[in-house]
Structures are given as structure tokens and as C-alpha cells.
């Protein structure tokens, strides 16, 4: 019979909330940087979505409305997934940078509560930022979302969050093992996902080996699902083909991410890497 230790569970929940609380303080303290990054993302997204109008003015025959929405979804969804991935991946890098790594890792806070706290914060912050980004960029565009089912698109985004948090946990271990190279490797992993997942083009245009890799990338299903929801008004039921792979990757990636991180932490403790200077 499973017996829950309510005191321990409560302590973990309080610790989990502590991670979210800390990151909220950081966002507040870096508010002007947040504004600057947001404006940069808006500008970057606009430069991407105006490609549709540019193509038309250059003489190509394109459905400008559809192409703009395809690019908009690509940019906005990638902004969300990239942010999620970045926040979870930089769990260790932030702590090392600020010098608090030893205090966090010697606290009686379980690693699942720590990492899932980072993931939960990233999801809440990412969703708010993404909705705002979508609204602001859309205001600059002359596009119509006639059939769009935004509710279904949000369900796809929610399903993708689990898998991205899990993959982020696996890459978060890299700065723990190698303080110098770990963060760079995290960026490479993020870049690889960007290329293979069809952010601005269908995956069918990729070389065959990249198409094989795209099958295991959760971003592929997220982008396909979000586009079907916004362009064709696909319901959650109709999007099941995109949602179940996302849930499956999430179910595998989160426990795998925790296991990989636990191994990495053990390695770091064995080799004295769990310290501010690396």
C-alpha cells in the first residue's frame, strides 16, 4: 500500500513554489531587459512575417494571408518553445553565474521539485509572453483568422510543454558536467531543433536524414498542430494525430530528463563540479 508522507509532500510543494517565486522576482528586477527583449522579439517576428508580402511584391504567386499566418505561427511558437527550452536548460547556468549554485544544491529540495518548478515558471511566463507577442504582431498585419480555433492551438501548445520541459532537463545537465562547454552544447541542441522541426517551411523540404530526425522532435508536431488549428480550425479531436506524439514524448522525456540530471549531479558531486567557479 502506498503511504504518502504529507509533511514531505507539503515541503516539496513549498520548495517548488520557491523556485517559481525566485524567478518571478528576477523577471521583476530585470523588467527593462524584459521589455527590450520583448521589443526585439516583436521586431524579429515582423521581419519574418513580412517575407510573405515581400514574396508577392517580388512577383511570386503566393497566398499572402496563408503564408503570413504560417510564418507568424512558426515565429511565435518557436519563441515559446525556445523560451521554455532556454529557461529549463539554464537552470544550472543561472545559479553558477550568480554564485548561488552551492546553496541551492545543498538545500533539502528534491531535484524533481527544483526542475519542475523551473518548468512550471517557464510555461506560465512563456504562455503570457507568447499571447502578448501574437497580439502585438497581429496588430501590424493585415491578416484574417477566419477559421482559427485558438483553443485547440493552446491545447497543442500545452501538450508540447511537457516534452520541451523534459528535453530541457536533459540539456540542463550539460553545464553541470562541463561548466565551460555545457551552455554552448545547449545552444547547439536548441539550434538543431529549430532546423529540423519545420519552423518556417514544411519538413518535407529537408534532406532525408533531417526528416528522420524531425519525427522525434516535439516542435514538429507542435507547429503542424498549431497551423492546422489556426489555418483550418481543426478541433482537439482532429489534432489527436499531433497531440498523442507530444504526450508520448513528454511521458518519456520528463522521467528521462530527471534520470539524466540525477546522473549528472552525481558526476558533478564526485568530481567537484558543483561550485560557482566550475
Amino acid at each position, binding site marked *: 500500500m502506498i503511504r504518502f508522507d504529507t509533511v514531505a509532500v507539503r515541503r516539496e510543494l513549498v520548495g517548488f513554489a520557491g523556485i517559481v*517565486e525566485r524567478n518571478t522576482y528576477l523577471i521583476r528586477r530585470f523588467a527593462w531587459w524584459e521589455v527590450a527583449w520583448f521589443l526585439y522579439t516583436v521586431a524579429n517576428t515582423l521581419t519574418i512575417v513580412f517575407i510573405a508580402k515581400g514574396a508577392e511584391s517580388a512577383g511570386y504567386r503566393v497566398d499572402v494571408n496563408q503564408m503570413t499566418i504560417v510564418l507568424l505561427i512558426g515565429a511565435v511558437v518557436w519563441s515559446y518553445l525556445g523560451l521554455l527550452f532556454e529557461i529549463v536548460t539554464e537552470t544550472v547556468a543561472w545559479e553558477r553565474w550568480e554564485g548561488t549554485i552551492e546553496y541551492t544544491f545543498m538545500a533539502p529540495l528534491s531535484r524533481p521539485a527544483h526542475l519542475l518548478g523551473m518548468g512550471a515558471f517557464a510555461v506560465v511566463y512563456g504562455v503570457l509572453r507568447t499571447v502578448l507577442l501574437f497580439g502585438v504582431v497581429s496588430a501590424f498585419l493585415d491578416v484574417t483568422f477566419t477559421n482559427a480555433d485558438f483553443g485547440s492551438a493552446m491545447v497543442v501548445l500545452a501538450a508540447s510543454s511537457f516534452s520541451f520541459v523534459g528535453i530541457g532537463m536533459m540539456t540542463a545537465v550539460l553545464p553541470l558536467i562541463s561548466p565551460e562547454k555545457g551552455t554552448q552544447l545547449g545552444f547547439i541542441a536548441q539550434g538543431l531543433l529549430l532546423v529540423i522541426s519545420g519552423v518556417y517551411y514544411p519538413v518535407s523540404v529537408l534532406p532525408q536524414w533531417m526528416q528522420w530526425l524531425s519525427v522525434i522532435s516535439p516542435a514538429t508536431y507542435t507547429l503542424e498542430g498549431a497551423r492546422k488549428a489556426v489555418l483550418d480550425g481543426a478541433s482537439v479531436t482532429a489534432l489527436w494525430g499531433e497531440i498523442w506524439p507530444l504526450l508520448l514524448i513528454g511521458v518519456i522525456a520528463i522521467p528521462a530528463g530527471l534520470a539524466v540530471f540525477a546522473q549528472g549531479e552525481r558526476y558533478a558531486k564526485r568530481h567537484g563540479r558543483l561550485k560557482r567557479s566550475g
Partner: protein
Amino acid sequence: MSAQPAVEVRDLRKEFIRRDGEGGLRHRRRRKRVAALHDVTFSLKRGECVAILGQNGSGKSTLVRLLSTLLLHDGGTAEVFGNDVFRRPRAVQRLVNRVSVEASFFKRMSPAENLSYSARFYGMTPRQSREAIPRILERVGFPPERRGEPMEDLSRGMQQKIALARALLTAPVLLLLDEPTTGLDPRSKLEVQEFIRSIREEHDSTILLCTHDMAEAEALADRIGILHEGALICLDTAEALKAAHGADTLESAFLAATGRQFEDEGGEE
């Protein structure tokens, strides 16, 4: 007073792998195992304050990091109030807190914010920390009007007081102090030392103090140990150490015990 020791360390050993040479494409760097601590044995009674003296690289920080569960050992045992540090780290983490030479905070966040989220890691609810934080900041003499200022705007002495407040907020029964006054101006140093003394008087805390400062060790500790090249070569009262080495001062006793001046050398693992 309980007969169970607060800390019981037996034959504790820790090695690190170091790389030799400059490396590069042609010259592969050789790896060798270097003992940071070897066969360290000691125990601390509950409520006792023990100072560990040693040069840089002698293994002081390694000892503190092992007891903080931040390192895994290569041999021997270490227990904190009967809990095996390496087998039951979570139980140990609940009993221990630490102040190190660097204050180590999120620098843009305020003292109150840093203390608040840290308290959460030790299971303190917002309601509990809202009551405890102003009280603890007042105890360390931190001006209430500066609680909202970023840590980076505070002096080193102020930051170190906040570090002590953070450690005390979780009511640790074992406090690990790793050179808590290094780099502080004389006034801040005295204030921090006075605060450490008051912690001992008011709380039931056991303290392991690693320091460079002979006077600090003598003023605060019941017993003093000398850690030399990873080995604990003696542990006794200041008077007994001086008598054993026929020395008038602790510095002379250190010199006689280690054969070296008390100066900075190398770096800690």
C-alpha cells in the same frame, strides 16, 4: 545534553582528478589523482564550536563541501546527528546550513527576496517567512529601510550579515562557516564575529568554523584543529596546542605543527 555527537567523521577521504600541462592538439594532458583530504577523523559535540585552521589548498573547503552534501567521498564515513551524509543527504540537508567566503546571492534581488525564496527551499511557507525575515534582519543589524535594495548595492560586510541571516533563518543545528570574515573591514569583521558568538549563546547550534584568522579561531572556538595538506594533524584547545608545541602564540604553534608559515598558497579544490 545528548551523548550523540553532532558530527562524527572517520577516515574521510576525498581525491580530485587534476590535469597536468597545457594540453593542446599535440600534447594530451595527463590526469592524476590528488588527495584533497586523507583519513580525516574528528567529532564535534552538540553545541561545540570547532575551528579548523589551514592554508589555502589544505582541504578546509573540501571538508565543508563534503559535510554540506555537495561532494561525494572516496572513503571513510561522515555523520551529522547520526545521519550518514552520503547515504541520507536529505536528512542532513535539513539540519545544516552554511556561510562561505563569498556571500553568493542573486545580486539584483533584495535581501528580503533572497531570504524569502531560500526559506521556501527549507519548507518555510510565505506566512512563516514574512514573520521571520524582518526579525532575523533586525537581529543582524540590517537597516529596515534597505531591505528592498538590490544586494549588489550593499557593502561586503552587509552582504555577509545577510548570508548569516540566510543561514540562521532555517534554524540549522549545524552551522558550517567557511572563512565568513575573509575580506571584511575590521569593523564588519568584529560585528560578524560578535554575531557568531551570540548565535552560540542563544541557539543550540554546533559550529564548524574554517578560517585563516588565528585570533578569530582563538576567540570563537572551543577547540582548534590544523588541517595540513589534507590531513588533520591536531585538534585541541588553543592552550593545549600552544603547550604541545612549546609556543607562546597560536601562530607559532601552527608553524611548529606544519613547518610552514601561515600564508596563502595554491587554491582550494
